[in-house]
C-alpha cells in the first residue's frame, strides 16, 4: 500500500474519526488524564461496587457447586449440558470482537479501529476469562480438570485428542494467551507515556516496570511494528478458528440440530455479531461517562453498526439454511429437530433469538438508526440477549428431543445456574472497570497516527 494512499486515508479518516482540533499533546492529555484522575467518577464507583458484589455471588455459588456437585444445576438426562456450556459459548463469542478489531481491521489498514481496539481487546481478555471458567466447573469431578492437559502420569493415560472438547480447550487457551500478548504488546508504549507523565514515585515505578524501559527509539519501533503486524497476522486465522472449533463441539456430534457442517462459519459470524454488540454497549457507556465523544465518534458507532448488520444477516442466512438443509437432507430426525425448535415447547426461545439476531439488525440499513445513540445502546444489549438464546436453542432444544421419544424430557435452570452466570458478569466488569481506572482505554500511539501531523510528508506541500 503506497504512502500516498495511506496519506489520503489518514486525512480522510481524520475528519470524522477525531473531532475538534486535536494535537499530540491534547490527545495525550485527554486519554492519560483518565487513569491519572485523583478520584474516580461516581458512576465508576457504583459500577465497581455492583461488580464486586456479583463476584461474591459467584464465589458463593461456585463453593456450593464444588461442595454438592453439578446436581445443583438444572441439567439432567437427556439434557446433559445446560447454562454452563451456553454461557461458555456466549462469552467466547463476545471475546471475538477484540482480536478481530485489532488484528483483521489492522491488516486492512482500517484506521478507525485505532480508537476502539484497546477497548475491545481488554473486553476480549475478560470475556475469555469468564468463558474459560465454565468448561472447568461444568464437569462432574472438578478436581480432576487437569486431566485435560497432556501431563505424563503413572496411569500412562493421556487426553483423547480426537475429542472436540480437547480441541476446544487448546483453542480457547491459545486464543487467550495470544490475545493477552497482543494486548500487552500494544500497551507497552502507552505505559511508557504514563510512566513519564506520572507524578508519584509509586506510579512511576509500577508503570515504569511494565513499560520495560521503552524509549521510543526507532530501532525499537522497527521490530515492534513488525512483531505487532505478525501478531495481527497470526491472530486473524486464530480468531476465525476459535469459534469454529467451539462449534465443532456440536458439529462433530451425532445429535440432530448439532450435526451440521454449517456451524463453523455461522458460529464465527455470530461471535463477531455479539462481540461488536458488547463493544458497542461498553463504548457508549464509556464515552458518556468520560465524555470522550471526540474520540469515540458517531462514525465509529456507525461503522460498528454496519459490521453488525453484515454479521447479523449472515447469522440470519444460516438460520434459514439450517431449515433448508434439514428439509433437503430428507432425514426425518433432522427435520423434526428444526420444526421442534420453531414450534416445540421452547418456541419462545427460538423466536426471541430470531427477533434479536435477524430482525433487529435490519434497522441498521438506515443511517438514522446507525447514528441514534440511545437506540444503538438498547440494540447492542438486545443483540447479546439474542445470541445467548441462540446458544440456548442449540444446546437445550436439540438435546431435549433427539432420537428416542422415550428419552425426551424438559429442562429448566435452577437458582444456581443463574447465580453462576451473574457471577461471571461480576468478574468481567470488575476486571474491565479496573482497566478503565488504571490504563489508557485508547491506544494513544495508534490514535496519534490518525492525526495528519503524524505523517512526515504532512508538513511539506
Amino acid at each position, binding site marked *: 500500500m503506497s504512502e500516498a494512499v495511506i496519506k489520503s486515508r489518514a486525512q480522510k479518516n481524520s475528519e470524522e474519526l477525531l473531532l475538534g482540533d486535536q494535537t499530540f499533546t491534547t490527545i495525550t492529555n485527554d486519554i492519560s488524564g483518565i487513569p491519572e484522575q485523583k478520584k474516580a467518577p461516581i458512576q465508576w464507583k457504583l459500577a465497581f461496587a455492583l461488580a464486586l458484589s456479583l463476584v461474591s455471588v459467584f464465589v458463593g455459588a461456585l463453593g456450593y457447586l464444588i461442595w454438592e456437585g453439578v446436581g445443583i444445576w438444572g441439567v439432567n438426562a437427556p439434557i446433559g449440558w445446560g447454562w454452563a456450556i451456553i454461557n461458555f459459548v456466549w462469552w467466547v463469542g463476545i471475546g471475538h470482537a477484540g482480536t478481530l478489531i485489532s488484528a483483521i481491521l489492522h491488516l486492512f489498514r482500517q484506521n478507525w479501529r485505532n480508537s476502539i481496539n484497546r477497548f475491545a481487546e481488554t473486553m476480549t481478555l475478560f470475556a475469555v476469562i469468564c468463558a474459560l471458567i465454565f468448561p472447568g466447573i461444568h464437569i462432574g469431578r472438578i478436581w480432576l480438570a487437569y486431566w485435560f492437559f497432556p501431563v505424563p502420569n*503413572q*496411569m*500412562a*493415560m493421556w487426553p483423547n485428542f480426537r475429542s472436540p472438547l480437547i480441541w476446544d480447550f487448546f483453542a480457547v487457551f491459545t486464543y487467550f494467551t495470544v490475545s493477552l500478548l497482543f494486548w500487552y504488546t500494544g500497551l507497552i508504549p502507552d505505559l511508557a507515556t504514563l*510512566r513519564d507523565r506520572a507524578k508519584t514515585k509509586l506510579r*512511576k*515505578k509500577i508503570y*515504569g*516496570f511494565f513499560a520495560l*524501559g521503552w524509549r521510543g527509539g526507532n530501532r525499537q519501533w522497527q521490530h515492534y511494528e513488525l512483531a505487532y503486524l505478525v501478531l495481527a497476522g497470526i491472530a486473524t486465522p486464530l480468531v476465525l478458528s476459535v469459534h469454529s472449533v467451539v462449534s465443532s463441539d456440536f458439529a462433530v456430534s451425532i445429535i440432530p440440530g448439532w450435526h451440521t457442517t454449517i456451524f463453523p462459519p455461522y458460529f464465527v459470524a455470530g461471535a463477531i455479531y455479539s462481540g461488536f454488540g458488547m463493544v458497542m454497549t461498553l463504548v457508549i457507556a464509556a464515552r458518556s461517562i468520560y465524555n470522550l465523544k471526540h474520540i469515540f465518534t458517531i462514525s465509529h458507532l456507525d461503522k460498528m453498526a454496519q459490521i453488525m448488520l453484515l454479521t447479523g444477516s449472515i447469522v440470519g442466512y444460516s438460520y434459514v439454511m439450517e431449515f433448508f438443509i434439514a428439509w433437503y437432507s430428507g432425514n426425518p430426525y433432522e427435520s423434526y429437530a428444526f420444526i421442534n425448535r420453531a414450534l416445540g415447547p421452547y418456541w419462545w426461545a427460538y423466536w426471541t433469538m430470531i427477533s434479536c439476531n435477524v430482525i433487529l439488525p435490519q434497522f441498521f440499513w438506515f443511517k438514522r438508526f446507525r447514528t441514534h445513540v440511545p437506540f444503538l445502546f438498547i440494540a447492542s444489549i438486545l443483540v447479546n440477549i439474542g445470541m445467548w438464546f441462540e446458544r440456548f436453542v442449540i444446546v437445550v432444544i436439540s438435546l431435549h428431543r433427539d432420537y428416542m421419544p422415550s428419552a425426551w424430557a424438559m429442562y429448566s435452570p435452577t437458582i444456581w445456574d443463574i447465580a453462576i452466570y451473574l457471577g461471571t458478569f461480576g468478574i468481567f466488569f470488575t476486571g474491565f472497570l479496573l482497566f478503565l481506572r488504571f490504563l489508557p482505554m485508547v491506544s494513544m500511539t495508534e490514535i496519534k497516527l490518525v492525526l495528519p501531523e503524524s505523517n512526515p510528508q504532512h508538513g511539506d506541500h
Partner: protein
Amino acid sequence: MQLFSRWTNNFAGILLMGVFLLLFSLSSFIWYYGSPYYTDVGYAPVQPIPYSHKLHAGDLGIDCRYCHVGVEQSYSAVIPPTETCMGCHTYVKTDSEKLKLVRESWETGKPIEWIKVHMLPEYAYFNHSVHVNSGVACITCHGNIAEMEVVYQVKPLSMDWCLDCHRSDSPEVRPVDQVTNMYWTPPDDYDQFVASFIEQHDNTRPVADCQQCHR
C-alpha cells in the same frame, strides 16, 4: 528521570532464570515424590507379630500356598487364619513370647489385625488366581519374600507398571509349577517358552482393556 538503578537491567534474565528454575524444581519434585516409586516402594510397616517370611518361607521352605490358600482360586491370596498358625505352633515354640498374640487370638477368637503392605486402589480389580495360573510368579510382583525378615513393597504396583507387562510382547512368565519358586532361573530356551506362551494365551490374554481391571 532515572527510575530504576542499574542492576535492574539484568532483571529480565534473572526473572526468566527464576521462573524456569522454579518450574523445573517443582515438576521434578512432584515427579519424584508423587510417584509410587517413592510413595509405595519400600513400604515396610511393623506387624503386630514379628512374623518372619525369611524363616518360614526361606529357611523352613514352607510353600507360599500353605498359608496363602486363596492364591490359586480367588482374587485374594488370603491371609491365613489363626488356625493355620496354631496348626504348627500348638506343638512348635508353644511358649514363645513373640507368639503371644497368636495364642490369645486362638483362645479369645479375636482375629489378629495384620497391616496391609501391598495396596491397590479400590477401583482396581486384581485377581491373584489368574496370574498365578498363567505363570506369573510371586516374586515378579512381591520380590523375593523368602529373604525378607519384614515384608516390604518392592514394586510400585502402579498402573503403568502393570501395563508394562500386560502390553509387552515378552511378559515375565514361567512354567506354572514354578510360580512360587523364588530361586528359579530362566532356561536357555526361555524366549521360545514366552513365545509359545503368548501364542496359546492370545485369545484369553488381557491386553490393555480398561474393563479388565476397572469395572
